[in-house]
């Protein structure tokens, strides 16, 4: 078991981006019952909504400019309020970054589930993004190490010797092998000029 299902929703803030409508009251009521503070906005989310824990947004009349962030870049879980199931509206709702959905008319049903599903999807997306960024960094670090090793090989060392020099350099500088490789490659490029450097890299 990872996250508990009775997780800290108490005291969380949810903004509802929807034109004033009786069925919004049902949503507000249910959010209150669950323990959240609900705040309404229309036609735009104010800047302070960036600090919200959840956003509920109208998929029927919504558009990009209502949000103080770019589509798909919300800093919190977003829940689309869907009335029309026309493909164009659904596409917009998804591009905006729906982590969960509620069908209109909103009632006492599905709100708790939507909160939990949205948060779970949001967390998973965040974790995936972080993992991808980390893998990209490591991938580019590997390329740098190969470049540094190649520099020594070009100077007549064997590959094993080149790795050993890199390791010892890193130890002497008290940095990671990746950082040492980065510095060596940068120094080399500065000495030789970028054109030469590139030629060596390609060799």
């Amino acid at each position: 078991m990872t996250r508990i299902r009775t997780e800290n929703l108490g005291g969380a803030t949810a903004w509802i981006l929807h034109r004033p409508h009786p069925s919004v009251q049902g949503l507000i009521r249910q959010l209150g019952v669950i323990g959240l503070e609900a705040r309404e906005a229309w036609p735009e989310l104010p800047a302070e909504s960036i600090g919200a824990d959840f956003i509920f947004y109208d998929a029927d009349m919504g558009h990009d400019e209502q949000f103080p962030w770019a589509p798909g870049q919300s800093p919190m879980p977003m829940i689309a309020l869907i009335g029309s199931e026309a493909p164009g509206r659904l596409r917009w709702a998804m591009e905006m970054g729906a982590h969960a959905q509620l069908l209109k008319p909103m009632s006492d049903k599905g709100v708790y589930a939507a909160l939990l599903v949205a948060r779970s999807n949001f967390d998973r997306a965040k974790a995936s993004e972080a993992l991808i960024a980390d893998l990209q960094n490591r991938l580019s670090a590997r390329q740098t190490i190969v470049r540094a090793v190649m520099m020594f090989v070009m100077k007549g060392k064997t590959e094993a010797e080149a790795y050993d020099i890199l390791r010892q350099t890193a130890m002497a500088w008290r940095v990671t092998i990746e950082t040492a490789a980065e510095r060596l490659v940068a120094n080399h490029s500065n000495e030789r000029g970028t054109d030469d450097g590139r030629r060596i890299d390609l060799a």
Partner: protein
Amino acid sequence: MKRVIDIGVLFSRSGIYAALARGAYTGVLQGVEEVNADASLDVAFRVIERDPEGRLDRYAPLCREILRTSEARHIFGCITSASRKEVIPELERFDGVLWYTVPYEGFEASEHVAYMHACPNQHLLPLLDWALPTLGSRAYLLGSNYIWGWEMAQIARERIAAAGGHVLADRYLALGDTELDHIIQDIRTLKPDFILNSLVGDSSYAFLARLAELKQDPEFADGIPVLSCNFTECEIEAAGDAAEGLVSVGPWFEPEGGRGGSFHEMSRLAVHELAKLLNGRPGAENLPLSELLHSAIRSGYTPRIDPAHLHAAQPAIIARLENSRFREIKRLPALRADPYLTHRSQSSQGGSMLKVVK
């Protein structure tokens, strides 16, 4: 002159949890009798009764039948959460209200249900907060294989983990199942400090009987404490002596050795509550529940149920069954219901235990 108002009654008077339903059913009938005899109230109730016989698929059609073929908008009924979930769509469709008078697992706040008994912050959590320091921290969770059993185990697991305890196992039995060899074997092996028994009806009685037999084994002569959030006086007869020593939690226990228990009492009170809400307000029986509550509040009446989430505030009383009577061990004053357990961190009870579990 009293107005006569139809009310629905939807309890299974046969089937595997008939003993529980009987407690609630007789409570409703007693409440109706008292209301009808009370000259200070301008309402009298006429009961429209249906019996789903413990069959889950009968609840929705019979609920619909009451709402369609009679004037009744208020229905007293349902024991299991599964049956409550069955009738809610019918209540929504026909503007009905279910008066639900037994404990449940929370995580619901329908606008069409008056939750008159207790939810986990009023039963399970106070019970565990008492049990863990008193009985020990190694728990065995046992329940009927449906939402009540599952969710009780889930909430218990979180609370026990947060308190540094251990859940040795959680096991589920189909409703009505009395095949318990593997469970007893399990318990012999694991030797838990206590067992949380969320079995319902016949499974529960069979389990208590088998566990009592285990005491003949010198190793288990002292017995393993059994806790329950759903065992009340109305089951003492069905469970027999094997239930002796069981620790239960609830909003009310019989003071004089009665056999109705809180299912009976909360049902009786629910009927009185409806009568008070309708008293002096002709036509109010057709109002949505929250409006009915608000109109009563405006005229100075304090309803038992909170108009925000339609759950009753309840004391949590922990009691042990001794000589066929529940003796109070501990009592917490009336607690506001927290059906989604989101207000836990604000309570003063056991604040240090309320960490998020990863």
